[in-house]
């Protein structure tokens, strides 16, 4: 502090004398150098003296503490200042953002080929599972306040096969006030409950079937989100998003304006100190343009399936609910978390059957839905167990007459899955998990699955959301 001020004063003095100095003789220069040297020495001495006095004040303060109570208060005040000063780091590194790295990996053992999609969902994304030892996605997170108005967050997913993808890269306002929060860039949509959570915060190795089939695990958007929190005692939050709609169920299009829209509302409260809950509704709307799916089974029974293309409107409504309980509200020891979500999607448009050969287009509409119910129980510190049930309904499609003999409209099968997990977290930063699942999502191909997983986090560890 002192040093900086004196140094800048010296520099200022130097600069103001510069024109004269350049005109001066060598002898003058020599004397100026000596003067500067003397100045420097005297300031250094003074700084040393000041530091010494500060130390003396400190120790004097400590002695006084023991002597009298009146002196004690002042002593503490003198002691405070150096403590406060030491908290401020100097140098370029002081403004480095918070950096976190998540390391994850799984071992998977499956009885069936994971490339087979859930029955009735061949035109949806098939997230599948990886067999054997796998490096999961490592996630690099960087976050910091940009200035008084904005905060920036970037999450880069490092793919095990190489390559980096941008999972999140958004800017959040911090100065709007009035309960308003604006976010823009690439973010996970605020709809539903699980959608905003990053993979390392999931309670199971995989997402519920309904998230895998209807959202390709998670709905990420490029766009902007506005949320408003009501000034009420109970938590009421309303949100709206406009996005590009690049991911499933939308498809990347070249157009002006918004490609997708989301509306959501959350209401939440506590009941005493032990219970808390949150309920929400969400609406999502987008449009698909030539959304191509390969390997879709058909009525003629083409081996390996056919490639279809869908164009049309997609509307999804969702309900989510979570309830948490912890004795005395102390989540460190024990807690129970029960959550459930339901999504229902209606798609209306036109389907082109068998792009490779037949290439027949006609109207197509279907309503798909799905839900899950899961409970997680931390029965002692560091140990949790969980149970989840998933169910999907592929719906009965109405198919235009041209494709009535080609496209399967009614699968008459509901994919289901039951998963149990046990995890152990030696600390807040590490977690080891075992998961067993009985996967009945593919008709006639029941699958017993086993997963082992580790999730470790290094560096800055941001706070988790509810």
């Amino acid at each position: 502090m002192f040093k900086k001020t004196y140094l800048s004063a010296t520099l200022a003095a130097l600069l103001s004398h510069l024109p004269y100095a350049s005109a001066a003789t060598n002898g003058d220069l020599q004397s100026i150098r000596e003067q500067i040297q003397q100045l420097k020495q005297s300031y250094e001495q003074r700084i040393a003296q000041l530091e010494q006095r500060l130390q003396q004040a400190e120790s004097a303060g400590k002695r006084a503490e023991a002597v009298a109570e009146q002196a004690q208060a002042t002593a503490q005040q003198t002691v405070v200042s150096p403590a406060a000063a030491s908290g401020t780091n100097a140098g370029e590194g002081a403004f480095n953002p918070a950096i976190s790295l998540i390391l994850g990996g799984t071992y998977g053992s499956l009885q069936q080929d994971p490339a087979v999609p859930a029955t009735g969902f061949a035109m949806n994304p098939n997230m599948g599972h990886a067999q054997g030892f796998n490096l999961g996605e490592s996630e690099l997170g960087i976050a910091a306040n940009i200035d008084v108005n904005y905060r920036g967050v970037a999450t880069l997913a490092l793919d095990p096969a190489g390559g980096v993808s941008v999972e999140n890269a958004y800017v959040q306002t911090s100065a709007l006030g009035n309960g308003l929060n604006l976010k823009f860039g690439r973010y996970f949509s605020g709809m539903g409950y699980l959608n905003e959570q990053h993979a390392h915060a999931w309670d199971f190795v995989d997402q519920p079937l309904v998230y895998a089939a209807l959202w390709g695990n998670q709905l990420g958007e490029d766009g902007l989100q506005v949320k408003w929190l009501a000034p009420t005692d109970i938590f009421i939050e309303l949100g709206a998003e406009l996005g590009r709609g690049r991911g499933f169920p939308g498809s990347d299009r070249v157009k002006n304006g918004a490609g997708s829209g989301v509306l959501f509302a959350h209401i939440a409260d506590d009941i005493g100190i032990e219970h808390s809950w949150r309920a929400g509704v969400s609406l999502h709307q987008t449009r698909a343009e030539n959304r191509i799916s390969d390997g879709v089974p058909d009525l003629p029974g083409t081996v390996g399936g056919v490639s279809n293309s869908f164009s049309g409107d997609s509307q999804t409504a969702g309900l989510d609910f979570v309830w948490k309980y912890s004795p005395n509200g102390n989540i460190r020891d024990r807690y129970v978390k029960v959550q459930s979500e339901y999504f229902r999607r209606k798609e209306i448009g036109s389907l082109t059957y068998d792009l490779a050969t037949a290439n027949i287009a006609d109207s197509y509409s279907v309503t798909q839905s799905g839900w899950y119910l899961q409970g997680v129980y931390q029965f002692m510190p560091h140990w949790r167990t969980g149970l989840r049930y998933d169910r999907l309904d592929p719906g009965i499609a109405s198919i235009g007459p041209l494709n009535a003999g080609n496209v399967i409209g009614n699968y008459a099968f509901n994919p289901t899955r039951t998963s149990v997990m046990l995890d152990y977290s030696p600390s807040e930063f590490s977690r080891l998990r075992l998961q067993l699942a009985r996967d009945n999502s593919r008709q006639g191909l029941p699958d017993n699955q086993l997963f082992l997983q580790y999730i470790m986090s290094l560096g800055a560890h941001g706070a988790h959301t509810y």
Partner: protein
Amino acid sequence: MRKILALLLLLAWALPAHAALNVFACEPEWAALTQILAGDQASIYTATGALQDPHRIEARPSLIAKARRANLVVCTGAELEMAWLPVVLRESGNSAIHPGSSGYFEAANAVHMLDIPARLDRADGDVHARGNPHIQTDARNFLPIADALSQRLTQLDPANTTHYQNRLAAFQQQWRAALKKWERQAAPLKGTTIVVQHKGFPYLNNWLGLQEITALEPKPGMEPSAAYLGQVLSQLKLHPAKMVLRAAYQDARPSQWIAQRAHIAAVELPYTVGGNDAASNLFSLFDDTIARLLTGAQ
């Protein structure tokens, strides 16, 4: 739809706007102190209970809703609330209480911190860069904190400056008298050897001269295993302690295990206001703490 709107309007209208300041206190001790210093000028919400581990709180929506309307957030700071407060403040959409603004108060800034780690490594457990955050166990710390907090109240609500100044003066007088009483009562505790379950008592030790032999947690925040407790037990044979201390929110089993085998007293301290029935305010918190320590030391 119309009904919902009407309900929303009604809720918005029904908000209490009588008190000058809406205060969001992170821990019960700061709620109690704010209450003493502001009186009826503040309506105070306490975010955590005495039986909750303040390190491990979830950023529940209810906390976000309360922070939305707060004019002042009063917390310990020093990273104690690191796992939840940043989310609460960010999601609240309330720019008045962001860190660095006048609506954000950290008590730890007003006191001299102890146990500042020489190195920062997660291998050392839950260490806090700015020092041990459990500052409320030394009653002397409340004087500089009250002073700083009262100044902040005045800054936010200058119309009531004299009100705050009078209350501060009254508190200081009462607290100094109480400190004298507590220090007299606790005089026999000086040099008493103790074991702690969690490293949460350096300020208490510093104040009353208790001598900490060791902690039951192998690393701060890490649950002790049976094997580790066995090690502590053999350590206690060499360096006997009078009692084992734990905070009200901590699991009783590890201290009871040690207490039974080492034949020492297991003392549960209220740790903050509301930690037990007797500790119903700041004064009785320390009355009860000292009474329990004296009983344990016998």
